[in-house]
């Protein structure tokens, strides 16, 4: 190269042409800072939407997110009451916490300037520290599509509706292994569900055990506080699923089906016993009597037997299970399934005296005096009547009575055009059973379909099977023929009017909407109550009963110290899992009272 290179000398000088141009310098801080619509800046949390599940905290590999108590946020079912606090001395703004937030309450904002001389200031509670402007400057957020949480439940395989009505074969087929693993893998292990489960089952633990492929551990964990898991796995009212973190944007984890899957790994009582491998304490010589082999009685019996008590259950009927045997149709809960669980209990030493009605076959007072403690799980046997004329006619009957007969193996003539009155699970059960017996079934319910207390799966199942549902219908009168047999039902339509006290809307009869339909029988299913005639009159003063239920304290202890009660006759929620919880709690109290 020549020493004097003119081009190489002059070319760079052309750079001077930039001289007159307007600079592209951003004159921060004279101009406000800029950030794009997706910028990942400081966090913001909508405190009201947040449920404190802690998923943000667990996904953070920097351990930057703490869950803390903050003022003004109270915990409730489905909300831990904790809220995330971010240590900005750890955060790397990857926004994984945003991507996994099941409710979408956590997002990042356009705000990113946080400068301070004191390094201890960098703890930042999103939603508290930027309460005023945080919501307006949200930038990086996740919606249902972008979120990493899996909101779609693995569908449960079922028999087809037309197939189902042909027999009492189990309608729900259960998950296979692959489906169960996949469904279990959706769980984020927050554990909020355990609080809403009356029995506080260890839900995240057994789901994780299933997800990791260890079904036996899952069963062991389940049996820790629920001795009737297979029953629960099939028919539980699953309050846990109502509060599942996933419900905020999608389907709850199928906790019930997963439990069912875990219990099905043990095909008979012997295998269950091998897997659970129960540790039975040495006999302590204390004698406990239990009245009623329903869920609460069986639970109490099982855990008392494990703790070394001498347990005898007195059951009026020929089968154990109470309402779960006699009230729930066999296509939901097959008899063998219950038998399996009961025989497992018997194998660890629970004695059950069948066909022994307390108050008739054996005196209650005598039982009480001969036992160290008595647990009553007597349930609600007596159905409520509709309170309209014509109920004494032939062909007007109660759902529990009907189910009792059918489940007990009997038959009952109801004709081919059946009306079921009520909107709870019992009503649906009766309707679906009647449908299986070949009848054309209509459910008449006072409120709307969405107000029905029955499980939505049950309602859908009934519709699939061809059960008609007539919402907003009020039965007025049952009309019989001259032989005293039901032939017609007079009813009216209703409209929903809002409740001034803020409760759920009330149905109000529409004037002039009365109508008549032809029926062969009317099945009432509007509720049941307890029958406490077995208690001798002189003891009735000591045992306090209010609104049809025993008054019990937290330990399920009645006003008589050695007498405990659980199940429908002692709690207001009236479902199997609450009964199990009652039984379990009573066991702890009895143990405390008699042993410690």
């Amino acid at each position: 190269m020549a020493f004097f290179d003119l081009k190489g000398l002059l070319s760079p000088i052309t750079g001077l042409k930039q001289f007159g141009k307007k600079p592209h310098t951003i004159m921060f801080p004279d101009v406000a800072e800029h950030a794009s619509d997706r910028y990942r800046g400081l966090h913001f949390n909508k405190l009201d939407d947040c449920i404190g599940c802690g998923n943000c905290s667990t996904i953070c590999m920097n351990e930057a997110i703490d869950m803390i108590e903050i003022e003004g946020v109270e915990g409730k079912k489905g909300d831990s009451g904790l809220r995330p606090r971010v240590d900005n001395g750890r955060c790397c703004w990857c926004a994984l916490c945003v991507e996994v937030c099941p409710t979408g309450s956590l997002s990042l904002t356009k705000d990113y300037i946080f400068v301070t001389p004191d390094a201890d200031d960098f703890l930042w509670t999103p939603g508290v520290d930027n309460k005023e402007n945080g919501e307006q400057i949200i930038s990086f957020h996740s919606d249902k599509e972008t979120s990493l949480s899996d909101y779609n439940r693995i569908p449960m395989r079922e028999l087809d509706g037309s197939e189902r009505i042909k027999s009492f074969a189990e309608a729900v087929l259960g998950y296979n292994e692959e489906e169960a693993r996949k469904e279990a893998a959706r769980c984020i292990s927050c554990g909020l569900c355990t609080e809403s489960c009356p029995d506080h089952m260890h839900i995240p633990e057994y789901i994780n055990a299933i997800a990791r492929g260890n079904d036996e551990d899952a069963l062991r964990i389940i049996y820790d506080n629920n001795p009737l898991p297979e029953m629960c796995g099939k028919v539980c009212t699953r309050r846990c699923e109502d509060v599942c973190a996933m419900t905020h944007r999608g389907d709850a984890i199928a906790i019930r089906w997963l439990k069912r899957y875990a219990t099905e790994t043990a095909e008979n009582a012997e295998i269950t016993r091998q897997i659970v491998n129960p540790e039975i304490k040495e006999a302590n010589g204390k004698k406990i009597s239990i009245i009623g082999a329903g869920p609460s009685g069986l639970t109490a019996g099982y855990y008392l037997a494990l703790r070394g008590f001498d347990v005898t259950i007195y059951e009026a009927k020929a089968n154990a299970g109470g309402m779960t045997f006699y009230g729930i149709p066999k296509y939901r809960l097959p008899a063998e399934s219950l038998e399996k669980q009961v025989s497992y209990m018997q194998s660890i030493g629970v004695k059950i005296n069948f066909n022994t009605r307390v108050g008739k076959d054996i005196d209650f007072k005598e039982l009480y005096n001969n036992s160290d403690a008595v647990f009553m799980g007597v349930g609600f046997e007596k159905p409520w009547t509709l309170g309209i004329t014509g109920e004494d006619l032939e062909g007007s009957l109660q759902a529990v009575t009907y189910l009792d007969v059918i489940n007990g193996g009997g038959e009952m003539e109801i004709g081919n055009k059946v009306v079921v009155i009520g909107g709870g699970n019992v009503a649906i059960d009766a309707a679906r059973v009647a449908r299986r017996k070949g009848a054309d079934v209509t459910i008449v319910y006072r409120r709307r379909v969405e107000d029905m207390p029955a499980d939505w799966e049950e309602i859908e199942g009934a519709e699939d099977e061809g059960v008609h549902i007539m919402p907003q219908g009020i039965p007025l009168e049952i009309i019989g023929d001259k032989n005293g047999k039901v032939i017609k039902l007079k009813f009216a339509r209703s409209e929903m009017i809002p409740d001034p006290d803020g409760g759920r809307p009330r149905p109000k009869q529409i004037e002039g909407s009365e109508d008549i339909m032809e029926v062969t029988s009317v099945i009432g299913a509007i509720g049941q109550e307890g029958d406490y005639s077995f208690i001798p009159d002189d003891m009735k003063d000591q045992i306090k009963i209010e609104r049809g239920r025993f008054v019990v304290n937290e330990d399920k202890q009645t006003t008589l110290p050695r007498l405990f009660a659980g199940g429908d006759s002692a709690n207001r929620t009236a479902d199997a899992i609450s009964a199990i919880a009652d039984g379990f709690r009573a066991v702890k109290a009895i143990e405390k009272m008699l042993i410690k």
Partner: protein
Amino acid sequence: MREKSTTLYIGPQHPGITGNMMVKLQVEGDTIVKAETHVGYLHRGFEKLMERRNWLQSFTIVCRICVPEPDPNEENYSRAVEEIEGREVPERAKYIRVMTLELARIATYLLWYGGQSGSAGLLTMGQWSVGDRNYILDLFEDLTGGRVYHMYIWPGGVRRDLPEGFKEKALRTMDYLEKRLDDYDKLLFENSIFQKRAKGVGIIDKNKAIEWGVVGPPLRGCGIQSDVRKDDPYEVYDKLDFEVPAMEGGDVWTRALVRRFEIRQSINLVRQVLDKMPGGEYYNKIPNPHKWTIPAGDAFVKTESARGEFGYYMVSDGGNKPRRVHVKGPAYVHGITLLENLLVGENVADVSFIMNSLGTCPPEIER
């Protein structure tokens, strides 16, 4: 007469050193007779940290392995996971990934312009190119939400779809940059100072280059057309039309020229990708990240970064965390064995000049 031999330590605190490393020189007069690279000033133990993080959490930390150009790391990580797991990536995601990688390449080269000219004392160039690099970072910000660390390419696809108006903005930026490249040429390549400094300095022997493990622009600067995008095509590079510039010479000057041509290729690639990008899904969703496991197996994937071939060796033992992720950056060879050899016989003043031309980046050597 031989001059007295002296030991010189350049770095780790030295304005001419690329990043935080140290070169120990044995000099006689101004001539280097022996060079030794010392690294470890930026060692964070990424590979150890990844053993403790699950598959998704590890994704966020890989981009930190190489600061100037984080995207090839994300690409490698994602592709290795996908290869072991057998996860499909939607077509649109592949195009978006290519676009991200090419934008990152341009941004890196613009930063290199600053470094290379700065080490020759031409400071204006850096003011321009590094300033213009911000326009690409703006694009990244719109696309990914982050300026430097994008955390955008993740296993299964990309994190978000293109924002509204992104295509137009990207094309405008490309047009602007293409015009600016002419200015850069006048300022740098036509500048006699740069030419005199660059020509004949730091020559790599063409016959030995492959064996020595030279990759990327330094290898193409020796006249060998080698590029992972062509040799072992990934994503949709086999469907795109581009050339791999190579020039005989092997000195700083040809390495600089290769980069100059590549920037134009990349601008064209971005345009092509934006033009051909199909619609549809951009992400094949992974299961719940806490419980996401990858079947046992191993994979070695390569990506062509702005500095050369970036490789990831990944092993899974079937669990929810990586068993081993081993990162091989181009600087691993360039910064140590190659640099130590190239510096011998050169002038002390050219140390940072040669380092810049090789694109040594200490964080990817020690990770």
